[in-house]
Every structure is written in C-alpha cells, then in structure tokens.
C-alpha cells in the first residue's frame, strides 16, 4: 500500500470520500458542511463531488440535526454528523446519550444506530471558553457509545473507517490543532482498530499516556528527556471507550511509573480512569512512585492567549513532571 504525506483534515476527508464511494448508505450531515466546506474546512469540496443529497447542510439546531442523524441510522443509513465544535454536543445530549447510546439495548438488539459523530475539540485556537473544551470523558462515561481520539493523520482516517464499520454510535474527537498537521497516510481503505492503544515511543523509565495533541507534546518532551538519559515510553491512547487496559498495564509493569497527560479538565477525567485502572490492577505492585495526572486547569479555557496556553499541559510542563517522577522527587 502506497503511503504519502497528507494532513489530518485531508486524511479525514479521504476517509469520508472512500466511504461515500464504497457504500451508498453513507451520508454526511452537519452545519455548513456543504457549500461552506465545514467550520474547519474538513468536508471542503465533498458537496461538489457527491451532491447535496449525500452531503447535507443542516439547520442551526444541534439537537435537531443529531436527531435526524440518529433516526437515519435507525433506518439503515450510515450518517457522519459533524458538530462545528464538540462543545455544541451539549445541545444534542438527548440524542447522543439517551437515544443513540441506548436504542440497541432498549430494542433488545433488534435495531442498531451506526452513526458517527465528528467532534472538533480542544483549545489553542483562541476560540474561548465555549468553543475550546475537551469533553471526551463525558461520553466515555456512557455505555453504548464508543469514543476515539486520533492523534495522527493515519489514525484519523483509519479510525473514521473503523467507526463506519462499527454497528454502534462512535464519537471521534478531532483536535483542532491537528487538522493542519501532516503525516504518512496509506492510500485506499484500511481501519485502525477501536479500543487499541499504540506505543508511540518505547522506553523503560516512565509511561506517559496521552492522546490527540498531548501525544505530540509528550513525544517532544520525551525526546528532550532522552538527551538527559531519561527514557520515556509514550502511549497513544487512541480510544477512550473502550479503553486498552492491557497495553497500559503492561507498560506500567515495565516502567514502574505512570503519568497521564490530557487536555480535559484534570478532575473526573480520562486521567482518573487510567489511574484507577492501574491502582486496581496487578500493575499496582510495580509502581515505584505515585501516579501523576497532568490535565487541564479547573477553569473555563481563557480567551487571553497566554492564559489559554497555561490552562492545558504544554511540552515543558510534561518534561518537568516526567523528570521529577523518574528522578524520584515525587
């Protein structure tokens, strides 16, 4: 399979085009995804290529749009619904949490809801408190949903195609700062398995679990630490629900130290889940230091760019925390 360098948003678009080509049941829905090309220009020209019947602009009502997508999925279509900002999913909670996630259970397995929600997430774009959140942990709390968070263009494509192949609702959290990031992406159709983490960098001194933009900051920190002789293992979480227990536990058993880096607000988040998972497991016996969480500040994301920067983990902070963890200062 040939691989070339394309951007994260190009990879997503390519995945959607492959799906539209190969499966007539696939449709795209969302606000301004047609002529405008999407809030972040991810759908771009797909309306020209596939027409307004398959690339549908929906009114400014997230609850309505998501409801139509869930209903369409119940009838056998495979809608990909784009939220302009994942923050706006708050308006569509009824459809996502009470309907999409529950219907297969409520109908005794007689129906399924193969809908995909695309969720542009995260801070760093100056979009302020209502357009910058990282809410993936909210949805990770709901059985019946699958929640993924691709960190690379390759996984952005592979996880989207895997989500379409999945019979249940899948939420894909796409970090806004990653859209322009380029990386090697295989041509043609392939899937990245949902529920499987990836060791992005092997190391022996500390396990750093991170996703989305945090993966890249963790990798950058790991390279700086490597110059000091600190060998960090960095795990790309990829999937929040289901979560890959074994990859994380096996890594902790090797390194004896765990740090979870995530952009969502630190408390009650992904870090808490992973920390507890390790504390409850046999990997606990291998810990040589307390588990560290580096998460977002306990505050709305500020508009001021300097404050926005310090509200979420950055490379230098990850580097310093990992260093103190490995040096036995905590």
């Amino acid at each position, binding site marked *: 399979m040939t691989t070339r360098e394309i951007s994260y948003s190009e990879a997503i678009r390519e995945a959607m085009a492959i799906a539209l080509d190969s499966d007539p049941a696939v449709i795209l829905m969302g606000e301004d995804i047609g002529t405008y090309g999407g809030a972040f220009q991810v759908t771009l020209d797909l309306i020209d290529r596939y027409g307004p019947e398959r690339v549908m602009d929906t009114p400014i009502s997230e609850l309505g749009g998501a409801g139509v997508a869930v209903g369409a999925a119940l009838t056998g279509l495979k809608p990909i619904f784009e939220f302009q900002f994942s923050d706006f999913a708050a308006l569509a909670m009824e459809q996502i949490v009470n309907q999409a996630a529950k219907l297969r259970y409520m109908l005794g397995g007689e129906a399924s809801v193969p809908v995909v929600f695309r969720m542009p997430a995260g801070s760093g774009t100056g979009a302020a408190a209502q357009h910058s959140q990282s809410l993936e942990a909210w949805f990770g709390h709901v059985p019946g949903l699958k929640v993924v968070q691709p960190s690379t263009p390759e996984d952005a494509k592979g996880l989207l195609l895997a989500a379409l192949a999945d019979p249940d609702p899948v939420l894909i959290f796409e970090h806004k700062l990653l859209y322009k990031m380029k990386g090697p992406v295989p041509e043609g159709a392939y899937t990245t398995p949902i529920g499987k983490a990836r060791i992005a960098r092997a190391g022996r001194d500390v396990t750093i679990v991170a996703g989305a933009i945090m993966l890249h900051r963790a990798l950058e920190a790991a390279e700086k630490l490597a110059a000091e002789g600190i060998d960090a293992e960095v795990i790309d979480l990829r999937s929040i629900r289901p979560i890959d227990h074994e990859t994380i536990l096996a890594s902790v058993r090797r390194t004896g130290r765990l740090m979870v880096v995530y952009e969502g607000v630190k408390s009650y988040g992904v870090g808490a889940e992973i920390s507890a998972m390790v504390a409850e497991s046999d990997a606990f016996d291998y810990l*040589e230091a307390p588990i560290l969480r580096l998460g977002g500040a306990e505050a709305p994301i500020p508009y001021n760019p300097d404050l926005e920067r310090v509200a979420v983990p950055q490379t230098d902070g990850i580097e310093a925390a990992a260093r103190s963890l490995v040096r*036995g200062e905590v």
Partner: protein
Amino acid sequence: MPVEVILPKVDMDMSHGTLSAWHVAEGELVRQGAALFDIETDKAAMEVESPATGYLHHVTAKEGDRIAVGAVIGWLYAEGEEVGPAPAAAAPAPAEEPAAKPAETVSAPAEIAAPVAQTDKIRATPAARKAAREGGIALASLTGSGPRGRIQGSDVAQALAVYRQPAASVAEWSPQPGPLAVSTRGGEGVPLVMIHGFTADSQSWMPLEKAMGRARPLIRIDLPGHGKSPRRRIASFADLARMLVEAFDDATRAHDQVHLLGHSLGGALALAIADIRARKLTSLSLIAPAGLGPEVDAEALTGIIRASRAESLAPWLRRLTASPDTITDDYARAAMATRRDPELRAAQADMAQSLFADSTQCFDLRPALARLETPAAILWGREDRILPARHALAAGSECAIHRVEGAGHIPQYECPEPVARILARHLAGAEATAG
C-alpha cells in the same frame, strides 16, 4: 524561607531521642544529604542527613539533650537569605503522635508535593512492598532513598542483595511465611510467657518446666528461624523485637496479665517487650539476658551455628555450662538432630551476623532496663562464659539479681531446681504486690 531541622522518628516506638553530636557548627554551610547530627535512641544510634543545603542557625539543642520526636532543633538558611529572629515552627507535631516531618522537596511541582502524613505506617512504594513480601524482608528494617524517606523497590533489591551475599560455608536459605510458633500448656493462674535464647528452642525449657511443676499456664514462643517458627530475614535487633512484640501480643490476647521470662537473646527481647507492654506484665524474669553490654563469646555462637554434626557441636555446647559433664554425647546428638536442616543453620548464621556483628552485641537494652517499672529479677550463672554476669550490674535498685551457683550460661538447664525456686518466689511476690 528557612528550612526546619527536625529530630526525626527513626523507630516505631520512639518518642524521644538523644542528640549525641552535631556534625555542623552554627553558622556553617551544610549540603543536602550530608551528615547533620547524630541521634541515639533506646535501640540504635544513627546519623541524620541534612534536609536541605544551607547555613545552620537558631540551634536550640546541644549535644546530650533529650529531644521529643518532631521538635525543631535548628533552621537552614539559603545562601544570601537574611537571618532574622528564629522563625516559629510551621507545624509542631502533636504531642501524642509525633512523627518525622522533613522539609518538602522544593523541586517537586506544587500540586504533587503532598504534605507529610502524620503516621506510623511505613512509606514505601507498591513495588518495594511487593519485593519485600517476596524477599521475606521487613520494610521497617530498611532506609528509604526516595522522597521523604520513601522505600523504593531498588532499596529492597539492594538490601536483599546484601542478605544474599554468600557467606563462607553458609548455605542459601529462603524465608518462610507465617507467624512465629507458639506452644502452650494449660494450668491455673497468671500465665508465664517464655522466650528461649539464640540457637535454642522452646524444648530447652523442659528441665525448668519439670522443676516448676504443673501450676500456671505456659506460653512458649519460638524465635524466627528456631524450633517450629518460620525462618525470617532479621536486619537488626529492632526488627526482631518487632516480630516478638507481635507474637507476644497475639499469644497473650486472651489474658489481662502475664509473667514474662526470657533467656539470653530471649531475655533481651523480653526486656524490649516489657519496655512497651509494661501494663500487661505482672513480672519480668531474665536469665543471663543479652543486651546489657557489648561483650559476647561470638566464637561459641559461631561454633554452634556452624556445627553440622554432634562431634563438632558438643565442644561448643560445653562452653554453655559450668560443668562440661552436663553436656553428654547423647545430649549433643539430640541437639544436633534439631539443627540438621542446613537452611535453619544458615538463617541463624545470618541472624548472628545482624545481631552480633564483629563479636559485639549490636544492641543496648540498658536504657530499657533503667526505665523498667515491672517487678524484675535477673538470674545469672556464676560461671557464664558466653555473656559476662557483670552485665547484670546495669540493673536498678528495685531489680533483684540472683547469682546461680554452679551454673554457666544456661542455669535453667544446668540447675533447674534453684532456678525454679527463685522464679516461684519472684512470680508469687509480684502477684501479691499486684493483688
């Protein structure tokens, strides 16, 4: 902010320590981790490292002072930091449960620098606990290299590596799980708890038990690596004492009061138990107790431990008694039969290495003896060649000293009748006083 210099808690049952020496004079610079002062407790002397780099000021304790655990005894000022009046201690340790409170690590991010817990529990990582569990080593015996003295897995690995260094002609042995062996005999009245000596076992009380007759209940405890008790790693006397306190507590749970009797090393342990379980004891009897001075006939101990046959054991056993004839060849063969397991001998050799390194009793129970309020009697054979009987002179005015005629280190075996009479009078007297 200047950093407090605190008298740390280095032992589980330590409430005070004596400052024996400062390594740094007031006004001098000391580096973090360098020796700052020495303290002595009832059981150990140790060097305390400086919690930070800085100049020592506002020293409130001088050499020889007895200081409560957790008390601030000085302050460390950073280079260029203005030395004003002595600051108030940030958080005085509560009187009833003082604990060490070293300064927080400055470099740790604020959100993860948790306050030091005021607890008697041992600070150790899960990995260290697992390694200790599997290696059969007591965490309490280790010094942690991690932050705030936390024991790391590597500390345990290091300690185990030291234990496992093959001593010449000593076989490998592995520790065993389970509590210390306790055997009991029923009877009427306040029970007598008995702790035997090094290389002996509970069977060695037989002649004395016979001489005492059937009266009060007996509770005999086997030391670790002796008799029917599991083999355990012993890092220090304090380590061993903790095990015995635990066994004592378990064995005497059903009784309000007990008498306690210990011989030799068992005597030192009985004294250590009496030091912290005084209210449980009606009386304390010590036969040639260890821990009252540095001298010990280590040659005889080594000889007994090393012996792999009755012929090589007998000459050393004969050093234990005033009259060599007391130890017959049959006795030596019977004794050897209980010591046939090479792992038992190896475990005892390691124990001797910890307790009697360099032919010295590496522990001092004299402060415990001085504090003793339980009615106590010391019995010592006039011809003891293992531990010098003059060690008994450490006893205070209320402690009886009986010099047993015609006896060496094991009067209860050599002269059980007079020993039984002395004990009977002592125990009855203590019961009458208590009653």
